[in-house]
């Protein structure tokens, strides 16, 4: 038990440090070619046709957008792939580019990517610089707790000052905790969610908080199965949209049509169940707002 | 000339051997220095004079043999060794004044930290000693601001401040410009007159003749001759001593 803990902790320490080191590299070359770190960018949904499209996504978000040795994997990837095929045909070549949160607008404005599908919450500040299509998923900020944890029952319980919450440094979720629903809580902010997850396992924190989609992605991972549960609170609305260059209304309409088709023919539900379902996460099918 | 030892000798070395790697630097050294005696050690470069001098307060540990100071065997390390060193004054060729402290602070440091004297008391005796070696007016300066001769006199005052039982000098005038040699020798001569036990490595033949009771001549790590200055200079017995003297005196 003790040894297990120590090993687990060491693994996360090593991983977290490597992740930070990788961020450093991105900074070095202006984040320009995050995807080219391992040589050529990853090519899942590679049709071999003439049409090619570059999509920015997360490379490190389990269940949503993750780069694995077998290729790209996650709900965002599946959605992006579906949209690309709808627009450019089944044999489209998708080139994946890493889109860290702070880089997403820049990637679009510079034309480095054609679209961004990367847990990208639609909001007005962002719309000053870019346009959105979608949303393709309506996420909410939520809490992930240990499966046997009973201290928190309702959102009211979050006012308790002894509550230890964990989130990522500077993230919108962390700010919501401080400014909004749990200003008194003891908030721990780490560089990544992996550190929060070990904290949750080690009982150093009571709950991890961020978008339920992200939490579901972690909780759906093999090693965490059945250990955690989502509280299913609705602490904020996070409609995930597809980011595109400002003024590309034709592309926006095409993407919206693709999303509607994906929902209508059941593929959306299939993707959702595969990548995010195992954690018991439920979400309604999305309604297009960005027209 | 012989000075009889009523009590234990001030310095006594028995069967002392010292190696630097394969180099046998001190070979079966045996001698005694009685209280109040001034011994001058002569010998060609590399003969082991400095090593012997440094062995006496264990700045250089020996490989075999025993050294006694004031009847006590040299302790190995720690408090006892520090206490012994406090009683043995040492003056170096390169002065070694503490570069970051003023002259008077150099002199006061060990009385304050080792003898635990009170500050006013330590300062007063420091100033007296500086007066005695003729540099009281330099007391607030830093070592680098003094001439070589002044620095060496300050170093002697620093050693004397501990009221040592014996003073060791390792070529105290070799690093000095010629015009400064005499002022240092004068201080040493006065010290000898006052009855201090002194062990002096030097090439100053004048000092040896004037102030020494005894000359030890070293060559190749051995004490080759051990006699009075008169006898040594007028009637050297060994070839090596004759050779050494002929080189020195033709200068």
């Amino acid at each position, binding site marked *: 038990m003790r040894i297990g*803990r120590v090993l687990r*902790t*060491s693994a*996360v*320490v090593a991983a*977290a*440090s490597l992740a*930070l*080191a990788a961020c450093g590299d991105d900074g070095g070359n202006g984040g320009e070619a995050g995807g080219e770190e391992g040589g050529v960018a990853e090519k899942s949904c590679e049709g071999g046709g003439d049409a090619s499209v570059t999509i920015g996504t997360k490379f490190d978000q389990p269940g949503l957008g993750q780069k694995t040795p077998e290729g790209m994997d996650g709900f965002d990837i599946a959605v992006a792939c579906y949209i690309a095929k709808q627009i450019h045909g089944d044999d489209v070549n998708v080139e994946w580019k890493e889109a860290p*949160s*702070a880089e997403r*607008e*820049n990637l679009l404005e510079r034309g480095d990517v054609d679209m961004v599908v990367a847990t990208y919450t639609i909001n007005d*500040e*962002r719309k000053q*610089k870019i346009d959105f299509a979608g949303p393709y998923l309506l996420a909410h900020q939520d809490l992930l707790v240990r499966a046997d944890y009973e201290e928190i029952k309702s959102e009211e319980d979050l006012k308790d000052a002894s509550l*230890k919450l964990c989130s990522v*440094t*500077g*993230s*919108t979720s*962390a*700010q919501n905790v401080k400014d909004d629903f749990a200003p008194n809580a*003891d*908030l*721990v*902010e*780490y*560089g990544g969610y992996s*550190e929060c997850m*070990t*904290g949750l396992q*080690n009982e*150093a924190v009571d709950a991890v908080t961020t978008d339920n989609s992200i939490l579901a992605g972690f909780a759906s991972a093999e090693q965490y199965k059945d250990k955690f549960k989502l509280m299913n609170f609705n602490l904020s609305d996070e409609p995930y949209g597809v980011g595109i260059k400002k003024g590309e209304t034709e592309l926006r309409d095409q993407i919206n049509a693709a999303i509607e088709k994906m929902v209508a023919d059941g593929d959306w539900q299939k993707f959702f169940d595969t990548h995010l379902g195992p954690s018991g996460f439920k979400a309604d099918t999305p309604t297009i707002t960005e027209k | 000339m012989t000075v009889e030892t009523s009590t234990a000798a001030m310095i006594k070395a028995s069967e002392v051997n010292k190696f630097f790697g394969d180099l046998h630097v001190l070979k079966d050294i045996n001698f005694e220095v009685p209280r109040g005696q001034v011994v001058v050690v002569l010998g060609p470069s590399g003969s082991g004079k400095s090593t012997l001098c440094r062995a006496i*307060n264990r*700045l250089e540990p020996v490989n075999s043999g025993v050294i006694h100071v004031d009847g006590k065997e040299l302790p190995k*390390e720690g408090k006892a060794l*520090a*206490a*012994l*060193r*406090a*009683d*043995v004054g*040492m003056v*170096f060729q390169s002065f*070694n004044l*503490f*570069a*970051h402290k003023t002259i008077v602070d150099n002199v006061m*440091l*060990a009385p304050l*930290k*080792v003898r635990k004297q009170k500050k006013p008391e330590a300062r007063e005796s420091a100033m007296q000693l500086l007066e005695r070696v003729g540099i009281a007016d330099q007391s607030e300066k*830093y*070592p*680098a*601001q003094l001439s070589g001769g002044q620095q060496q006199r300050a170093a002697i005052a*620093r050693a004397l401040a*501990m009221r040592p039982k014996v003073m060791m000098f390792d070529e105290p005038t070799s690093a000095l410009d010629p015009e400064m040699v005499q002022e240092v020798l004068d201080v040493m001569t006065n010290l000898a007159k006052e009855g201090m036990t002194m062990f002096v490595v030097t090439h100053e033949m004048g000092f040896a003749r004037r102030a020494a009771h005894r000359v030890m001549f070293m060559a190749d790590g051995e004490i080759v001759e051990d006699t009075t200055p008169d006898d040594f200079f007028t009637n050297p017995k060994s070839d090596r001593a004759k050779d050494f003297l002929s080189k020195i005196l033709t200068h």
Partner: protein
Amino acid sequence: MVDDLAFLFDKYNVVAAFWVTVQLAVLSAIGSLIWGTALAAMRVSPVPIMRGFAAVYINAVRNTPLTVILVGSSLGLWQTLGVTLAGERATEVNFRLAILGLVAYTSCFVCESLRSGINTVHVGQAEAARALGLNFGQVLGRIVLPQAFRSVIGPLASVLIALTKNTTIAAAISVAEAAALMKTMVENEAHLLFLVTVIFAFGFVFLTLPTGLILGWVSKKVAVKR
């Protein structure tokens, strides 16, 4: 531009965040000087165990990325072993652990600077002190280290500047210093990314430039004449 600046300073407490950075840097600097000096003393001590310990410690810690040390102390010491350093709130605990980690890391560099300083002190200085009956601690503390320190104020200033910049890594373990606020601002004001970067770059220059200048001046003042 000016409007944007006013907006950012109005919405975010940049000064408070830098104040945390200053606290981290100052407390860690004090700790590193003390522990780094102790390590240097061990490295030159006559006791083989101490020399060995210091050598192993320095080579292990100096070659470990600071991120690993900080994340490791938060995840390992706090989460796994329950070390809290008498802090009650998690934020407090992590602040103290950050200082612990920064001290553990920076002291290696303080030690190595000092050791190079010790090497510039003439051996005759220590010999003269030993010959007067000073013990090892006194020789080191009164004679060798004061001279060594004076000769390495320049390199120590570099260590201090590096330390100030290294405090940004504490953001990874929940310390609300400048880099943490920068992350927040980047998250919210991605359209002002350039301005935000400039603010923080300038903030660090503002902290570190005087350190270098003042210590450079001090170094000249106290230099030992030989």
